[in-house]
């Protein structure tokens, strides 16, 4: 797939960049779901990573490689704190999901009013000079660079999460998801397991956010931390198939072209709001008729054909 990169023109590269961004974010979101933790505030981790990476690079003058690691660390710490608070005070189920929204919105309001990071006016990165720019030093480049970067981190996240799920921790997370009290009774350190899974998920989301911030070139709390991106990030994995490793990637290949396609259609027809209506209606159709998501259905279909 990645090898096809140079063959695609920049339109497809940009579209696939977005696809892999959502696939990557969906993988990190799905990781938390493996322990039964529904995150409705993933924008917080994405946004913290994006802001930290951009600010440490642009204002702090650090290498973007180091900045992106700092961003991931900050997101991971924020994630651990939320997981610890949720676990320690036994905030479960819907309440935990709403706790993640609460922290994300709290952070958004604070960033909206924090002048050091540009508040609502946004934080802007200086444009790069394409002739002298060296993408591997600045982590910024043209469409091809970002396309390859997102393909790489998606592949990396996929294999990392696959390894994690096969490890001791993976089984602990699944145990907690099935029945937390039973898992605890069997000796699973529930609190530590939850903190770990959210820390990894948030840290990875921070990396995705850092790169996404570089791709955008400008950061606004509302669009990179707000409720809308938190929701956008989780639609792909749910549509693709929660709990399956490949689901988030398949979901992103479905959802992103749908989103972009309905935007283009709405603009062409000059019909305001048409894009959101189409998007909502298609998602409703998928969730109503494919309860487990697209990927598990494909797997079952192929298995049925074979036998």
């Amino acid at each position: 797939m990645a090898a096809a990169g140079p063959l695609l023109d920049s339109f497809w590269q940009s579209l696939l960049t977005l696809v892999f961004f959502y696939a990557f974010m969906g993988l990190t979101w799905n990781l938390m779901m493996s322990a039964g933790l529904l995150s409705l505030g993933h924008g917080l981790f994405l946004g913290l990573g994006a802001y930290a990476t951009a600010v440490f690079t642009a204002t702090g003058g650090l290498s973007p490689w180091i900045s992106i690691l700092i961003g991931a660390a900050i997101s991971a710490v924020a994630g651990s704190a939320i997981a610890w608070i949720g676990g320690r005070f036994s905030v479960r189920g819907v309440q935990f999901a709403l706790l993640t929204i609460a922290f994300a919105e709290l952070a958004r309001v604070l960033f909206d009013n924090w002048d050091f990071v540009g508040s609502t006016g946004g934080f802007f990165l200086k444009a790069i000079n394409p002739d002298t720019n060296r993408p591997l030093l600045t982590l910024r480049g043209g469409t091809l660079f970002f396309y390859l970067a997102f393909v790489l981190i998606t592949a990396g996240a996929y294999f990392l999460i696959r390894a994690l799920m096969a490890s001791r921790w993976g089984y602990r997370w699944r145990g907690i998801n099935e029945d937390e009290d039973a898992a605890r009774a069997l000796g699973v350190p529930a609190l530590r397991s939850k903190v770990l899974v959210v820390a990894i998920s948030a840290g990875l989301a921070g990396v995705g956010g850092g790169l996404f911030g570089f791709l955008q070139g400008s950061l606004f709390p509302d669009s990179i931390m707000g409720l809308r991106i938190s929701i956008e990030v989780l639609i792909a994995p749910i549509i693709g198939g929660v709990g399956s490793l490949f689901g988030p990637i398949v979901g992103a290949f479905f959802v992103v072209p749908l989103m972009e396609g309905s935007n283009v259609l709405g603009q062409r027809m000059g019909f305001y709001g048409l894009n959101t209506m189409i998007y909502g209606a298609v998602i409703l159709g998928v969730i109503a008729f494919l309860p487990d998501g697209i990927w598990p259905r494909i797997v079952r279909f192929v298995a049925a054909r074979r036998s």
Partner: protein
Amino acid sequence: MTALYLNVISGGILIGVVYALIALGLTIIFGVMRVVNFAHGEMVVIGMYIGYGLWSAFKLPPWMLAPVAAALLFALGYALQLGIVNAFIDRPQHAQFVLFISFALMITGLHLALFGPDSWPIQMVESMQSYTIGPVRLDVLRSQAALMALLLIIGLMLFLRFSTLGRSIRAAADNLIGAQVIGIRVRKVYAVTAGIGMACAGAAGALIAPIFDTQPFLATDFTLIAFIIVIVGGLGSLTGALLGGVLIGLSEALAALMISPALKTTFSYALLVLVLLLRPNGLFGEPER
């Protein structure tokens, strides 16, 4: 100084009563069906457009239009529940979440298509008027909205307590299987409940149309406010929604005065986090069964 604080506090309480009506709708749906309506704010905005439309057509004061908005939203909630949501009652949380997000997207899209992204302010003589009681000045529109919201809340409470249908709703919330055993038609009760929940949102929307300028993207703000209130009060608790609404209205008003209007929601979120830590089920919530 005291007068300023008194005015801000009373203004916060008045808007808080309307917030309580919004939250009541959310909590009643959750209490009975264990479903979180993530499109609640969109329902409020539908109510706002209905309020605006009726006001511009008939020049009636918006507080009189709340029952009309309530009736229309009741029909919408009833139809959505019977048509779609009932099939999702036993589905996992994330599937229900996406279902309501798809509703929210379609409603916002429809609003944008019909009314555009600009805000539609209601301008009337009362906008500038206030009642003076001793040192306190009460905004006329807010007072009317709060009074009407209070009447609707009392009416709903009486309905739930004394009518047969209201008793069936409480029975279904209390013990689902028991309710089915004694012959309560749960699907119909669910539809009525969804209708009532969304009617609360719609009525509140019509009431605040003259206070907040109507605009499609307000929906998220109302959804979030309603969430904060029901979690602070306790998901599924009616008393919690009422007191939580007033509390959040008050905390927004005080934060706007003491810090800055842009940070008015910070107190609410801080309060929310505090409540989740000290009483995870909310101030009036009961532990999950």
